[in-house]
Structures are given as structure tokens and as C-alpha cells.
């Protein structure tokens, strides 16, 4: 894969964020409908059908593609909600839909043979055999890789599959294989796979205990902060727990993924598309991150070393990690 053809795939949780991403130079934006059919089913987020029609018009006029994420797992007995999402994305001329469920892939492939299908990270296809399965069975043309693979493993994979590979380069970070985690529903009854939410705000409480603030999810303490210290959101796998007699961020620190410095290696590995996480983010955040990655990709295209860009301001001082792309993360 040459840098010429690399695509920057950018999040848009609202029509305003879509415009910000398009204006900042996104090659693609990805969006979801305002319901449980996508994995960012948060209040005040996502697109109605008319909003998506307008967003697609805005993006297409400026040469940007629109991908619609329909990446939760349809509820048994009620496939219509998810099928209609696929039908409407096709009708509104979305450039692709991003799917995770085998049954829904099967439906989309049969009902809309002309519709381009991408495999969501939530399908967690981590081997060449799994990716080839989705390609052969449903004509999947691009797979978003789960955040479990190292750069050399991605390079090997790219040479073994006949379709495009997309990887996450920035933003929130799942530490479990995506789409294979029920921690959230264990604590709250709601999960990414079933409800499109992880560690939902409806189950979050901040409780003052003496000079401390305790963040809880579903009644379980996820972290504790000194009064006055900013209390982070209690995402279950980014909490502090005690195990083996020691208190630690057992699964992962409250950190976010940043692979700006790895972009040349990922391009050399054969990756087609770089995905920025953050459909729950506002338009200013989206605009800033997309601008930074646009500059980096354009520099690589010109054969230059990507500029060092300070993303600390964007990540609100959160620690940053290159995640599973480096073997020592495991």
C-alpha cells in the first residue's frame, strides 16, 4: 500500500462534527443512526434519517465518503430494526455500511449486493482465516482490525488477505478483544454488543466519602479520587482494582491510543485506512484531531517525516499509549 491511497476515517456523532471532519480533510466519516443499531448509542448523539441525507450530501459535494456503522448484534426476534438501518443506509447512498453480526452481514449481502460492506472492529476478526471467511461468505471489502495485533502481525496479515485493512490510530482504547466483552453488562445489564453502550452513564455515580470522591458503575467502585482532583469517567476496564494483594490499574490505565509516530510503519505494513475513535466527541475535538492526522498523512505522502504534533491538549492530559501495536503492551 502506498501512502497515496491511504484514507483517514473520522468520527461524526453529530451533523456539526460531520461538517468539522469533512472541512478538516477527512477522506471518510463514519456515523450511526440514533438508536441501538450502533455501538455509540448515547443520548444526544447520532443521526436521524433526514440528518444523514443532509450529511451525505454535504460530504459527497466535498469528495468525502460516508460510512454507516450498524455494528451491534441484532436482538433475537427483532431483526427488522437492524435490517431497516441497512436498507436506509443503502437508500441514502452511503458509501459503505460497517457491520459486526454474521446474520446481518448475510442479510446485507443478499438484499443489497451492490452495497459495500466493511467488517466492524466489533466482529473481532483477528486472523487471516477469519477475515477471509467474512470476505468469501459476504463479500466484505474491508476489515477493521481488533486492537490486539502488533505491527509485524498486521503486516503479515495484510499479505494474506485479499481485502483492505483498517486500523485504529487515535482515541479511546478497548483493552479486550472488541465485541467479545460482557464486562459492562455484568455490572450494569447493558453491553456494547446488545445495547451499543459500554459502562453507560445511566449507571454511573460519583459518591463523596470524606475527603474522597468515589466513582461507581452499577454500584461497583471503579476508582477513587481526592476531593478537588478531576474524577475520571468510570469506564470499567480503566479502573483501579485489587488483585494479588496489590492495588493497580489491572487492565489498563485511563489512557488513550495515539499512533501518530507509527503511521509510516502501518502504511508500510499495508494498511489502507486509519480510523480515529470518538463519535461521542464534539466538533472542536474532531476538527483538531482530523487536522493533526491530515497533516501527518500528507507529510508522509510527500516523503517527509510526519511532524511532531502535540496532542496532549486534545487528550486532556490523559496518558497516551501505542497499545497492542507494540508487543510489550501484552
Amino acid at each position: 500500500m502506498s501512502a497515496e491511497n491511504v484514507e483517514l476515517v473520522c468520527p461524526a456523532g453529530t451533523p456539526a462534527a460531520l461538517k468539522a471532519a469533512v472541512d478538516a480533510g477527512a477522506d471518510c466519516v463514519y456515523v450511526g443512526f440514533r438508536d441501538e443499531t450502533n455501538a455509540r448509542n448515547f443520548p444526544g448523539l447520532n443521526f436521524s434519517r433526514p440528518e444523514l441525507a443532509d450529511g451525505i450530501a454535504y460530504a459527497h459535494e466535498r469528495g468525502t465518503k460516508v460510512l454507516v456503522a450498524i455494528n451491534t448484534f441484532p436482538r433475537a426476534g427483532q431483526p427488522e430494526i437492524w435490517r431497516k438501518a441497512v436498507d436506509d443506509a443503502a437508500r441514502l447512498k452511503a458509501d459503505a455500511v460497517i457491520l459486526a453480526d454474521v446474520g446481518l452481514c448475510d442479510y446485507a449481502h443478499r438484499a443489497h449486493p451492490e452495497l459495500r460492506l466493511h467488517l466492524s472492529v466489533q466482529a473481532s476478526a483477528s486472523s487471516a482465516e477469519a477475515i477471509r471467511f467474512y470476505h468469501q461468505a459476504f463479500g466484505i471489502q474491508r476489515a477493521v482490525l481488533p486492537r490486539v495485533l502488533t505491527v509485524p502481525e498486521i503486516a503479515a496479515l495484510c499479505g494474506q488477505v485479499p481485502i483492505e485493512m483498517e486500523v485504529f490510530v487515535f482515541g479511546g482504547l478497548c483493552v479486550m478483544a472488541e465485541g467479545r466483552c460482557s464486562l459492562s453488562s455484568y455490572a450494569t445489564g447493558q453491553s456494547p454488543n446488545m445495547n451499543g453502550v459500554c459502562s453507560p452513564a445511566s449507571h454511573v455515580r460519583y459518591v463523596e466519602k470524606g475527603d474522597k470522591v468515589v466513582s461507581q458503575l452499577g454500584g461497583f467502585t471503579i476508582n477513587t479520587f481526592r476531593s478537588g482532583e478531576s474524577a475520571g469517567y468510570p469506564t470499567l476496564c480503566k479502573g483501579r482494582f485489587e488483585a494479588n494483594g496489590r492495588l493497580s490499574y489491572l487492565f489498563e490505565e485511563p489512557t488513550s491510543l495515539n499512533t501518530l509516530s507509527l503511521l509510516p510503519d502501518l502504511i508500510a505494513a499495508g494498511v489502507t485506512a486509519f480510523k480515529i475513535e470518538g463519535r461521542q466527541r464534539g466538533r472542536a475535538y474532531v476538527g483538531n484531531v482530523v487536522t493533526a492526522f491530515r497533516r501527518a498523512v500528507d507529510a508522509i505522502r510527500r516523503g517527509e517525516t510526519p511532524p511532531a504534533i502535540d496532542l496532549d491538549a486534545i487528550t486532556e492530559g490523559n496518558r497516551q499509549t501505542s497499545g497492542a501495536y507494540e508487543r510489550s503492551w501484552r
Partner: protein
Amino acid sequence: MSGAAKLSLGPVLFNWSPERWRDFYLRMADEAPVDVVHVGEVVCSKRQPFFDKVIPEVVERLTAAGKQVVLSSLALVMTERERDGIRALTGEETGFLVEANDYSAAAALKGRPHVVGPLVNVYNEGTLAYLARNGAVRVCLPPELSAATIGCLAGQGLTEIEVQAFGRLPLAISARCYHARSRNLHKDGCQYVCGEDPDGMVVDTMDGKPFLAVNGTQTMSYHYANLLGELTALRDLGVAHFRLSPHACDMVAVARLFRAVLDGGRSAEEAAAPLEDLLPDAEFANGYVHGREGHRMVQGESLPSGIL
């Protein structure tokens, strides 16, 4: 299917020594009233070589005892070595059913009868229908499904449906090893510290409430699933197999209790206290099948009796 429900023993998910692992299966072959027994490393490919030398004896004894042996595949397949393992398991016809725990295994088993394990996402009838066409004859459902969903899937009549009825639930799988991380180690140099915890490493919240259990790269529930009280209702919804996930406790006694309730020899209420006696320190949960948080123990609420 009502009345004919079978018991299956899931694969040992923990890193037991090969001797303990072998002795466990031999005792289950001789004494446990289970119909199906799963064998194979599901969680971490680094453990696999230790069991290779004892698997043939275990499989032979289980088969001789009249158990249906199912060979379970690895859940998260990433490396060349792991891909080779899947090819070896699915490549040649051995006469044993294979349980696919990811889509690389399911794809390799296309056109042949096989089992789909609980680590493959089967949430709806569309996916179930696809897997049935692919050759699946039995599907063990993921842990977070409610009885309404289980009933809907069992009512399709496409494959046999299996549900985990006992043991810590598999909640997540990762490339990262949290057992190693808890000792400031990496997965590559893990020193196999997961072997120190035969039922997993308990994870407490900061205020001392037990919450989860870590088993290498796998994260499990702290609570043990216990569906004694739901067995007959789930069987009436069409569930054909109930899975008991192995723990260090007396699994023969556990299997006898579940068998007795399925056979009508004991009521669920009569079996509850003896099960608690077998696991005096365990906390039980049945929340998921009641459509609630997975850690809940719901009592006094009946499951839906019909298919939704």
C-alpha cells in the same frame, strides 16, 4: 426436546498442571453423570504444549466411558503458531466433534458437523441460521443472553442449544495477560503465573468487594453461574444441553446435583443447599437469564414459560 436435556462438561479454562488436568478428566470419565465432555485449551496458546501429551489418554478414557468428546478450539487466534493449531485441530477428520470458539475455526469446519462455542457471538436467529447452514449441530450461547433470547433461538429448531448452567462466566478475552500484569510481567515472560490460581485470580474493587476473576488473558465473573432454579424452565424453552464449567471443587458432586434436578429426583430448592456446601466461599448468580445484571442472584421470579 423436553425431558431429554443433557449435561455437558465445558473445557477446563484454567491453567491446571497436566497431572491435575488428566486426573480430573479421568475421574469425570469414571464417575460424572455428564453426556458430553469438552477437551482443549481455549484461553492461552502458551499453555497448549503442556496438555498435548496427556490429551490422547484422556480422550480415550472419556470415549470408553461412553462420553461424547468435543475438542474445543482457541478463542483468540492471532499468531502463526495459533493459526497452525487451528489448522491441526480442524484439518483432518478424527471422528470427534470440534467446538469452534472463533470464526477461523468455524470457517475451517464448513460443511462438517461441529459445535459453536460460547465465545462466538450468536445473538439472533439470522446468525444461528447461517451457522446451521455452515454445519453447526449445537451452539453454546454467549453468557449475557436473557431467557427470552434463549427461548427464541431454541425455538428455531435449527441446532441444539446449549447454555452454561454452572461456573464462572467467560466475560472477556484479550491479547494482554492480566495475570502477568498483576505481577509486573509481560505475556512473553509470564512465568505461567496463572497456574497459581486454579479457579482464577479474584479481582476486588478498591473498597474490598469481590467483582471479577482473571484467568490469564481471560476475564471471568467473580460469581459462579448457578442455574439450578432455571433448569426446568430453560429445558421447557427448548434448551437441550446445560454446560458445567470445571472448577477445583468436587465436579462429580456438582454434576450429580444438576443431573438430579433435570431428572426430577430433586427439586431445585433441595439441590441448592448441597451446592452451597460444595462451594462454601462462592457467590452465585443467575442475573443474565433473568434479563438483569450478570452478577445478580434473582430469586422468586419465574422465567418466561413460552417463546417470545
